[in-house]
């Protein structure tokens, strides 16, 4: 079945440093979604990417969908303590019938 892995599992950065999490699928995806879960909270939708090679920006966050539509990345520029949480990608398979969440990357930001 479809597998969606994220790396790294955990990253600890100092405030102001950049951060990137990578999402890799075992199969080609129709689209990919990204969610953020704050500690003790529930996942909150961030963005959806659909097109091959698509890049979208939200303030300090940059999302990219790979050319082959099998991977994606989320890059945060100049992290802040408010960025703390776990970032999940969710990939929709090629038949658009199965949405699989990635394993998540937990980000810790310290001053």
């Amino acid at each position, binding site marked *: 079945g479809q597998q969606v892995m994220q790396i790294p599992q955990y990253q600890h950065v100092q405030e102001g440093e950049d951060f990137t999490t990578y999402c890799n699928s075992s199969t080609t995806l129709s*689209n990919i*979604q990204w*969610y953020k879960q704050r500690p003790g909270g*529930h*996942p*909150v*939708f961030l963005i*959806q990417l659909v097109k091959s090679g698509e890049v979208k920006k939200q303030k300090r966050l940059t999302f990219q969908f790979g050319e082959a539509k099998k991977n994606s990345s989320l890059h945060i520029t100049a992290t802040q303590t408010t960025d703390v949480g776990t970032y*999940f990608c969710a990939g*929709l398979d090629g038949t*658009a*019938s*199965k*949405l*699989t*969440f*990635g*394993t*998540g990357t937990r980000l810790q930001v310290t001053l």
Partner: protein
Amino acid sequence: GAGVSQSPSNKVTEKGKDVELRCDPISGHTALYWYRQRLGQGLEFLIYFQGNSAPDKSGLPSDRFSAERTGESVSTLTIQRTQQEDSAVYLCASSLVFPSEQYFGPGTRLTVT
């Protein structure tokens, strides 16, 4: 408008007992999803409903787990003969249609003693 609500927020039960968890999706959302999240872990898909179509039950871990949805409203996740490994947060989400962006509820924390 109101978001996704879940009840109870916390449930402690003894091993072997049955539990029912409830989810009220956002009004007008045709798709509803259930996930399990163990402490410090990712989201484990359990089941999703889309309108009047047959639900996708492929994620249910055993026949002790079942879920129902009344039309396009409330859903109930039932766990029979609970085991300690069922302890987790159970998250419900809804979306306008499958597979658009999901709105998650606050979850039900289940502890099986």
